[in-house]
């Protein structure tokens, strides 16, 4: 797989596969294409050459099917600031085709450490709280594939411990793909793709 923005090459000749209960860490210096690769894997942008194939029990999955089992947490994936935490999750679940009771959504918000903040507007949240809410959103559909871009950004000690738990649980549930520059996060990967 290759990706170009105009004449500028981001990466070229990339080839890897990940299977269930495995984790992959994508590493590389700033501008090496880590975020671009995650965007391609999530279907937000297309590769210039090559393709991403999702396979379940020998059957190729369609993009719409992949959408239902894939989640992404990324710094440039903003939540709606003018909505509350609960309204965000309610909207994002409904638009994905899942109907949750308010109580269930509140429990999920509580789980990420935002107890009693569910009715606050996201614009009043700190960057760490927004990051926690992104995890609540990403885990709503119990994703088979979880993509994390700079997963520990803005998180405090307690948040990082929650993140470690998410990574552990995700490896049990399906596939984890993580893009990072932090040396101590590389250890989460069973495989490493270095874009440098």
């Amino acid at each position: 797989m290759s990706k170009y923005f105009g004449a500028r090459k981001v990466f070229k000749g990339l080839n890897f596969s990940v299977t269930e209960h495995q984790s992959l860490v994508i590493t590389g210096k700033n501008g090496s294409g880590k975020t671009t690769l995650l965007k391609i894997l999530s279907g937000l942008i297309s590769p210039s050459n090559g393709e991403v194939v999702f396979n379940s029990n020998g059957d190729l999955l369609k993009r719409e099917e992949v959408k239902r089992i894939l989640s992404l947490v990324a710094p440039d994936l903003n939540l709606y600031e003018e909505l509350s935490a609960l309204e965000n999750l309610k909207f994002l679940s409904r638009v994905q085709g899942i109907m949750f009771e308010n109580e269930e959504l509140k429990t999920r918000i509580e789980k990420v450490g935002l107890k009693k903040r569910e009715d606050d507007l996201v614009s009043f949240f700190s960057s760490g709280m927004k990051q926690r809410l992104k995890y609540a959103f990403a885990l709503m559909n119990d994703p088979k594939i979880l993509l994390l871009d700079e997963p520990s950004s803005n998180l405090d000690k307690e948040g990082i411990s929650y993140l470690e738990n998410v990574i552990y649980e995700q490896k049990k549930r399906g596939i984890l793909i993580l893009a990072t520059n932090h040396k101590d996060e590389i250890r989460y990967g069973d495989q490493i793709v270095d874009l440098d």
Partner: protein
Amino acid sequence: MGTKSSTWIEQALSIFQKDIKSELRTRYALNAIVMFAVVTLAVVGFSVGQFSLSPKVSSSLFWVVIFFSSMSGLAQVFIKEEEAKTVNLLKLVASPSNIFLGKFFFNWALLLFLEIIIVPLFILLLGLNLENFWLFICVLVLGSLGLVCATTIIAAMVSKAHIKGALFAVLSFPILLPLLIVCIDGTYLSIQGKSFSEGVSDLKVLVSFSVVMLILSLLLFDLVWKE
């Protein structure tokens, strides 16, 4: 996991509801569209002064006000997603056709709200005399539908450009010109007090325009929406 799954129409309506809630809290498009309409009407009202306008001029002025007011607000439906950087989130969770329908419903609601303000003001300031009120309402609702069908897809196209506002009006004008001509004619007939049967041909054109634009938009939106 959630208990039941929502249908495509529920998903489109949830985008519509989110946009309504967002709009009521931020007034992103509402303020622009209402202020533009009121100021334009006031300027036209003062310019006309004591002169009485002919039905042809009145109906033309009415649709000029609607066109330019809508140009100031209808593009915001996608621009605000780009500016708030929520566009990737929406792309990730929703299907393109549901996004288009949700945004389309929102723009139509916004335009109908604008018309609720413009029509009484126009009657008050410019002495518009509607002899066939129900024909006028049909032209207004169907004309708005056609206008929104065309502008919603154009709004998606211009949201990625640098000069969004200017580009929106420039791209919309040639597409909306036939619609505006028919709307002006239908409004003229309603001011003249012509019967409903005389306005039917205009209404048929408005319905056809809306159907063609809606189908084309749904087919093209997937391509426009992808980066």
